[in-house]
């Protein structure tokens, strides 16, 4: 089967091609201008192309094109042992890679049926919430930059560096973190990491309050963002919106509350919601969510349980390095895990986490081999960008830029 290389002939394909909706050609009008926004426009924060049809400054129609950085993660994953898929997930939403990592690990744990200890779950929660903060912090501060306020970005960017310092202390990497393992964490939180988290909790609220004060009641910012790129709750649900972008329309759907994972049910936090679903609401929802995340980190940090930071799952969790040098069993397991020799059970599993910008789902079909038979990522950005055309129609070009940054579409996750 593997060496067969025949191409599949599809009936009816040609006529589908002919029926292509070439919107721009149909609506060609002498008074309208076609403007090519992107693929690498500095204001789009990523590789998105939009062919806009403009009537003066007003956008009449838009045709988005994606796929410029498509890296075939789903295909690559079919050839990789479960362990080696984690680095692929880092590179999807690179603003909050720990959430992607842990979401993936939790899905695999669900497939393998591994229960992980409380301490590991709490450490995961801390890391995921830090990642959420850094994700929202980038989104909101860049939204400020796009509306002309560079200062806010400078206020908070140092804090992102500080979060990256914590990542570095926990796993050695800053951006593409890869910090968890199937079955828990790679290592326990060191005293220095705990200290850094404590310092962050003390310092960050002040910085964030200052940032919030700078923008939330700023006349220019409010005028630039209110009623811009609005979407109704009904349309948002039809498009499959989740996360802050859905909550800005007034629907209080949050995976952490609806389907708690990793001990989220232990923590006390609220779901901030907006009402109109416009750019300003999305900004406010993200701002409020950062405070809720801080609350969660504080609770997890204070009540961090004692115990092991990983599950007792020798078939999937790498043994400690010192053991590998002394103990034959450990050496064998180490080898088998590294070479991906251990098969996963047959099964099918869907697990979703509340990612930086919505429900990030992992759908795994395992046929009992060392690699997944099929791995599908439910990527929230893929869903938001589809609605982008509808959201910017009738608005101005400058507003379209703000709408895109408030949707927090990350090119890596969009294209996967």
């Amino acid at each position, binding site marked *: 089967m593997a060496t067969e290389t025949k191409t*599949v002939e599809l009936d009816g394909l040609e006529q589908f091609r002919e029926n292509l909706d070439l919107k721009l050609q149909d609506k060609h009008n002498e008074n309208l201008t076609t403007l090519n926004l992107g693929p690498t426009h500095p204001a789009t924060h990523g590789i998105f192309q939009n062919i806009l049809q403009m009537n003066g400054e007003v956008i009449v129609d838009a045709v988005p094109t994606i796929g410029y950085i*498509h890296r075939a993660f789903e295909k690559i994953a079919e*050839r990789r042992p479960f362990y080696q898929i984690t680095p692929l997930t880092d590179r999807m939403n690179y603003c909050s890679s720990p959430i992607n990592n842990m979401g993936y690990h939790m899905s695999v744990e669900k497939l393998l049926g591994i229960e992980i200890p409380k301490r590991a779950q709490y450490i995961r929660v801390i890391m995921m919430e830090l990642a959420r903060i850094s994700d929202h912090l980038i989104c909101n501060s860049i939204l400020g930059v796009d509306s002309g306020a560079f200062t806010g970005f400078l206020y908070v960017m140092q804090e992102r560096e500080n979060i990256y310092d914590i990542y570095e202390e926990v796993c050695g990497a800053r951006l593409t973190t890869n910090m968890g393992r199937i079955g828990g964490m790679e290592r326990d939180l060191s005293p220095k990491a705990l200290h850094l988290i404590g310092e962050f909790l003390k310092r960050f609220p002040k910085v964030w309050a200052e940032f919030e004060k700078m923008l939330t009641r700023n006349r220019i910012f409010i005028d630039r963002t209110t009623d811009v790129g609005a979407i109704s709750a009904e349309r948002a*649900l*039809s498009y499959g919106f989740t996360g802050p972008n859905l909550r800005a329309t007034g629907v209080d759907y949050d995976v952490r509350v609806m389907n708690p994972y990793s001990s989220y049910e232990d923590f006390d936090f609220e779901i901030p919601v907006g009402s109109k679903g416009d750019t300003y609401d999305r900004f406010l929802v993200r701002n409020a969510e950062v405070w809720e995340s801080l609350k969660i980190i504080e609770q997890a940090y204070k009540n961090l349980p004692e115990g092991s930071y990983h599950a007792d799952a020798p078939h999937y969790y790498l043994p400690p390095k010192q053991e590998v040098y002394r103990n034959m069993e450990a050496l064998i397991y180490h080898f088998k895990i590294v070479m991906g020799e251990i098969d996963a059970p047959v099964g099918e599993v869907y697990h979703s986490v509340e990612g930086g910008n919505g429900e990030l789902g992992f759908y795994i079909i395992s046929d009992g081999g060392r690699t997944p038979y099929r791995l599908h990522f439910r990527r929230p950005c893929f*869903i938001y960008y589809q609605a982008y055309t509808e959201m910017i129609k009738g608005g101005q070009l400058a507003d379209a830029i703000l709408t895109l940054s408030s949707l927090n579409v990350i090119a890596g996750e969009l*294209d996967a």
Partner: protein
Amino acid sequence: MELTNENVLGKIIEQFGEENITDAMNPDGIMTFQTNRQTIHELIKYLRDDKELQISFLTTMCGVHYPEQKDKELCMMYQLHSLRHNYRLRIKVYFPISDPVMPTLTDLYAAANWMEREAYDFYGIVFAGHPNLIRILNVEDMEYHPMLKQYPLEDQTREDKVNTFFGR
């Protein structure tokens, strides 16, 4: 009515008949069953519009390729979610690769548009009635559908790698 797997399955079978709803199982807590191409559109519309169920959120959909299954080579998986009842549901449709046509869901869910384009791009599944069925992630002049299993990731003509050393 409380939405449990038995209740929902019973209700759906009552509506669509046992011949159309088959192989119900529960692999990870999410009820999974198979249906056919004639039923899928009606079924998803029913799930969305039924006052009791309100399973009206299309979480995701994706294609799967099973080259060994005769006349069931392709599979389309739909996963739906009822936000009101917090109940998830998975529906699968198997169909032959010689006739890879599925009805589109774009008239029910706006989300289906790009997801179907993705499935078309990866697996060559043609969605009848889709308004703009073109490739989404790959280049337009590609002549094959890369997620099909007959296109392995690595170059199979290479001889410098012995597969047995890599567990393949």
